[in-house]
């Protein structure tokens, strides 16, 4: 797409147009997967391993099959042979299809507590649950590998005897729990450290957390007699689900139709096929449609949370504050099969800092935990927690203001990302300048003891991938955008704005339809901060195609050449004689019933440049000296959004991401005991409530992206990156203790204060 160099006056772009699908949501009409009911539908339930690590010696399903009301029981033996289960699946994190097959249902080994062992379809959920109890499984319990550091030790039990570390160096001779060891480096690290006046090294740890979407994972599958499978499912990407089903069930892509239901939150956690293959197998075996809805405990145990991490940061700096070298070691726990977000964490960790000498080492390690999925800027929050906490300490040791320190070392256009790609236009310095002038940074803390202010930066590169859209113009001049792009929280709204803007028609004339995999061309998933950016570009292009087609029809009507025809506000005219004109409705009607047929504009993009996103968060906190509880007094999120296509929607993304980051920072974690999760409820896994959060102020900075529609950047992910570090930095100033572990629960803060005798 053409670079948007100057900001055009717009009618709908940048406006707070109401959410396209809001009415159905405030009236209870929006249909989610669990709301569906099909004739003859059965209810599926999944038997899950109570052991985090165990060999499966035998499964006996006969008693379950004999229970009245049970229509099908499936185990790994019901999966087709794995001949077609080759290759890798994308998404935000990679997964091999063989590993996905292993995760779908345990074969000979249960790899985590909650791993599916068998599934039942019955006439009621209660009968299905009773049948689960009748399935006899003989396990040989193995010692669980509980965390990544333990998994890396040479005498740790191996999860997979056929897993060898992928590395750039020599091929390993022995299998290992380390799936990948990656390195990215620039310059000469030793030289960089030798040039430093100060070398500082710190280590950090973060726990497993969950995306916490409110809608439990749910799916409905219907296997037709001709072998086709239809799925209604809660997913971020229908084409990824189709491909997974094709591989796992040995079906051509055209035989699987995936219909997206409304999705009650995903945040990266609804990308892989988890329930879909089981529901499809049950439907195939029973001949009935089958619905499976997870319980909340199953969601925690068996969907795919975010990776726990161990991170070490070492930097060198001159007395004046300039960084001379940085080394980051990322150990990331993938759970049961490989695929921790080492790529995202490697990109985020040093992104804001200009460094001639740096090295990042990352380890993707398997353990007996649920296999992780993406969680909003996957890998970014732990990486920024480590590096942004560390940089705060460096600034303090050098006696430099934390904002000035970051400004001094900030990257600019032409500097390089950690993977050596050059930055195109970015807004980091503009964000920092905005912070420097803003009252959230310049005004003194409200008076009171044990209060402090913290600052941290965040980065996300943003995915682009493939996006496709069609815009249909109807005989009355109204238009419908049709695509297979799942709308997580605002895609329909923003795309309606783009179509109305480009076609210069009223907003109400534009409908937006999310189709299924049978009736829409391939488009990639809604994730990676790519949807508004990359799909928006496809929609923009589809509109240009529509206008080009309409122009030909209008020219025909006006007996002129298309290049002489102008268009604005629903009317075509001849450039040299404006009184010769025709309106859009006439052209649309004429094209539909006569001439060359109806108008259908197509837009596809596959190779947009990245539009990197930077954010800075400022938090004021108060720490209760008696309990260690952290209360947030004020929270401000600064973010370069390129261009806010719809400020209400953008603020919603920023506030929601910040809130999730705050939960990660202060209260949320999986409490494991010997590999068993002990807190799989919302009471014990503590997400922020309305009483835990202040208003979250948004300062949107608009430095236009080098590519894409209207200069917009992806906005959804970067807001979750800075909060943990911003709060850790604030807690340090409020309570005098530096927390190196998340979450910073009252207990942890209290103990840290005790340990440093800072109580008082």
């Amino acid at each position, binding site marked *: 797409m053409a670079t948007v160099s100057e900001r055009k006056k717009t009618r709908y772009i940048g406006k707070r147009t109401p959410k396209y699908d*809001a009415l159905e949501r405030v009236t209870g009409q929006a249909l989610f997967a669990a709301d569906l009911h099909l004739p003859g539908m059965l209810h599926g339930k999944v038997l899950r391993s109570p052991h985090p690590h165990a060999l499966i010696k035998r499964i006996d399903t006969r008693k379950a099959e004999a229970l009245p009301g049970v229509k099908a029981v499936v185990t790994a033996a019901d999966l087709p042979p794995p001949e077609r289960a080759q290759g890798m699946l994308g998404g935000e994190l990679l997964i091999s299809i063989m590993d996905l097959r292993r995760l779908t249902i345990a074969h000979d080994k249960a790899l985590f507590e909650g791993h599916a062992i068998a599934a039942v379809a019955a006439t009621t959920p209660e*009968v299905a649950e009773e049948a689960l109890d009748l399935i006899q499984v003989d396990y040989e319990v193995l010692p669980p590998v509980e965390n990544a550091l333990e998994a890396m030790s040479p005498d740790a039990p191996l999860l997979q005897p056929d897993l060898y570390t992928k590395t750039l160096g020599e091929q390993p001779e022995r299998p290992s729990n380390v799936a990948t060891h990656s390195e990215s480096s620039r310059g000469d690290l030793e030289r960089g450290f030798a040039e430093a006046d100060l070398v500082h090294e710190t280590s950090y740890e973060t726990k497993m957390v969950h995306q916490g979407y409110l809608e439990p994972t749910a799916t409905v599958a219907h296997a037709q007699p001709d072998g086709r499978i239809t799925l209604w499912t809660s997913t971020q990407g229908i084409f990824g689900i189709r491909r997974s089903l094709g591989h796992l069930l040995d079906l051509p892509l055209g035989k699987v139709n995936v219909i997206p239901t409304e999705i009650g939150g995903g945040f990266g956690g609804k990308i892989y096929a988890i329930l879909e293959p089981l529901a499809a197998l049950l439907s195939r075996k029973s001949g009935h449609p089958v619905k499976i809805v997870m319980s909340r405990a199953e969601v925690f145990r068996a969907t795919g949370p975010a990776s726990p991490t161990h991170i070490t940061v070492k930097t060198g700096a001159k007395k004046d504050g300039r960084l001379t070298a940085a080394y980051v070691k990322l150990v990331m726990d993938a759970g049961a099969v490989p695929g921790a977000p080492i790529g995202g964490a490697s990109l985020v960790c040093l992104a804001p800092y200009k460094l001639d000498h740096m090295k990042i080492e990352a380890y993707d390690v398997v353990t007996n935990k649920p296999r992780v999925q993406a969680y909003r800027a996957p890998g970014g929050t732990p990486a920024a927690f480590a590096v942004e906490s560390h940089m705060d300490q460096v600034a303090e040791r050098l006696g430099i203001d934390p904002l000035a320190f970051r400004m001094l070392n900030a990257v600019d256009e032409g500097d390089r990302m950690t993977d050596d790609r050059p930055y195109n236009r970015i807004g980091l310095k503009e964000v920092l300048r905005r912070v420097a002038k803003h009252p959230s940074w310049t005004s003194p803390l409200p008076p009171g003891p044990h209060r402090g202010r913290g600052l941290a930066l965040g980065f996300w590169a943003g995915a682009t991938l493939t996006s496709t859209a069609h815009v249909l113009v109807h005989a009355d001049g109204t238009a419908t955008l049709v695509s297979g792009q799942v709308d997580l929280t605002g895609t329909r709204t923003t795309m309606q704005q783009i179509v109305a803007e480009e076609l210069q028609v009223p907003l109400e004339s534009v409908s937006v339809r999310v189709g299924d995999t049978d009736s829409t061309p391939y488009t990639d998933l809604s994730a990676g901060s790519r949807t508004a950016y990359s799909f928006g570009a496809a929609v923009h292009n589809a509109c240009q195609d529509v206008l080009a087609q309409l122009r030909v029809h209008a020219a025909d009507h006006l007996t002129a050449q298309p290049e002489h025809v102008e268009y604005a506000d629903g009317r075509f005219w001849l450039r040299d004689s404006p009184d010769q004109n025709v309106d859009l409705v006439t052209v649309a009607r004429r094209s539909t019933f006569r001439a060359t047929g109806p108008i259908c504009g197509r837009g596809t993009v596959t190779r947009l440049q990245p539009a990197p996103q930077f954010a800075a968060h400022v938090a004021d906190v108060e720490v209760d000296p008696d309990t260690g509880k952290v209360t947030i007094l004020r929270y401000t999120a600064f973010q370069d959004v390129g261009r806010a296509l719809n400020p209400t929607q953008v603020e919603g993304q920023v*506030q929601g991401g910040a809130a999730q980051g705050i939960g990660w920072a202060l209260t949320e974690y999986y409490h494991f005991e010997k590999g068993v999760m002990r807190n799989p409820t919302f009471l014990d896994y503590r997400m922020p*409530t309305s009483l835990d959060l202040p208003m979250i102020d948004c300062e949107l900075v608009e430095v236009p992206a080098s590519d894409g529609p209207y200069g917009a950047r992806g906005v959804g992910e970067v807001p979750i990156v800075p909060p943990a570090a911003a709060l850790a930095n604030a807690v340090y100033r409020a309570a005098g203790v530096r927390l190196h572990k998340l979450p910073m629960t009252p207990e942890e803060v209290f103990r840290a204060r005790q340990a440093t005798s800072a109580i008082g």
Partner: protein
Amino acid sequence: MTFVANFSDTTLRKAVRVVAKLPLSFTVNGEPRQVFVQPWQTLLEALRDELALTGTKEGCSNGNCGACTVLLDGRAIVACCMLALEAEGQDILTIEGLAKDGRLDPLQETFIEYGALQCGFCTPGFLLSARALLNTNPAPNEQEVRLAIAGNLCRCTGYDKIVRAIQAAVEREA
């Protein structure tokens, strides 16, 4: 770890699975309704499965998330933690009954205007908790608003726009 009463508990259900259904008469969204339910079925299940009122959502099944909030005689309750038969003779308002005579409740209007919803899964519960608040306190301050919705989890919005939308509805109703 905390023990939570959980009516979807398998053991409880298996013990009484074969019991015949019992009649339940109650008022739902202003209309008298009669259905037959199992004694162990929750009000949430009666609404969703027997009356096909699927606007009331199930997010956790043990009262932690508030997605199944409905009004019982004007008071907000979590429908997953009440047995259906306990609603005998009671007056229930679900999200499907919040708009009256084709007119949206002011809360529904302000939720749309202020962008107080994203995925929308938790939205029916928030609207009903907020309705219950405004029924008894026509002029709540921010802290009272936050307290009234503290039993409803939202993972998309960070609550900011929800609180503002409720405050705006307060002004609209004044």
